[in-house]
């Protein structure tokens, strides 16, 4: 067992666990968007940041990928952590204004509005890539992937055209944390998502 503290509370973890897994085990709340038990964590959304303190010195790490270590002193609600969270939520509200899920989650953490300009009111995908990871790691098909880079990054099938590699298992739709895959799915299969989702895990 590996012993350390989260928010000054003593916790023990199995070797190989991450800080997030330990926190969840103890019911300590850390927000996440791009994390899902069934696939490898990818550290993309950065909502799960926590602060590690060591004397006067501290650093922020993503708890979903940070492996537990003996004696670390983890804090989940510090000023720095909350600053990162607040900005991510504000930016998400502006970039994915069409996502009900994101709005609800942000509100739970006290962010209800954003001062930033909305460029695309219909957008709801935040390109966390979870859908593509599930399709690759769980379904084993890689029918969809994260394409392009930077601000242009998006989810899709090659050449952004329907692909028959997709077997319409619906896994991607069911793991999507923002509800976006529902509509993207049409372009992957060339058929409305509703017909497929009953197959979802």
């Amino acid at each position, binding site marked *: 067992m590996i012993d350390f503290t989260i928010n000054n509370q003593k916790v023990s973890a199995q070797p190989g666990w991450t800080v997030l897994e330990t926190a969840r085990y103890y019911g300590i709340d850390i927000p996440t968007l791009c994390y899902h038990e069934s696939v490898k964590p990818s550290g993309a959304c950065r909502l799960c940041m926590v602060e590690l303190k060591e004397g006067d010195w501290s650093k922020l790490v993503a708890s979903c990928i940070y492996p537990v270590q003996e004696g670390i002193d983890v804090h989940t609600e510090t000023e720095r952590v909350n600053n990162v969270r607040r900005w991510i939520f504000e930016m998400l509200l502006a970039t994915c204004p069409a996502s009900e899920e994101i709005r609800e989650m942000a509100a739970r953490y006290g962010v209800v509005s954003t001062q930033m300009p909305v460029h695309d009111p219909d957008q709801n995908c935040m390109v966390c890539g979870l859908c*593509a990871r599930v399709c690759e790691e769980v379904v084993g*098909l*890689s*029918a*969809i*992937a*994260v*394409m*392009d*880079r930077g601000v242009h990054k998006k989810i899709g*099938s*090659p*050449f952004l055209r329907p*692909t028959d*590699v997709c077997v319409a298992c619906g896994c991607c739709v069911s793991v999507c944390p923002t509800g976006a895959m529902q509509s993207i799915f049409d372009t992957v299969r060339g058929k409305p998502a509703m017909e497929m989702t009953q197959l979802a895990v």
Partner: protein
Amino acid sequence: MSQSVETLDEIVERYPGQPEYLIFMLQDIQSTYGYISEDSMKVVCDYSGVPLTQGYSVATFYQSFRLDPRGEHEVRVCLGTACHLKGGQRIVEEVERRLNVAAGGTTEDLRYTLSTVNCVGACALAPVVVVDEEYLSNMTAKKLEKHLKTLDYDLENETKEHGHV
């Protein structure tokens, strides 16, 4: 042109069929054909044993790959720091205006592709423009336009000599 262009198979077979050679093959295809067509992408992915999604995400991630045919001449304006401070952005804007094409695009007559690049390592000659393989130093929009005119001239001459372009 009479010289034979290598076939797709010849290009991919330079390399072992492994994922680590995917980028090599795409680069060679791009330099032979100017862009990566959907068919060639399929061939490369099949040959190197990766899903089509990997080929496509690689080709869209890296700046040098194109999925559409390029213009006859590629004009790359440097916007690295040194070139930026010496007015590279102004050259881009001016060329966009004169060629009537946005950076990243190709003119309708498929003559020029205009793109920007972040430093070509010739910063002491800023601002730098690279036309095809040729580096042009201390450029201004005016000098560039003159240079492009000489390219057009070459083109016309070629047409006259060979009776086709």
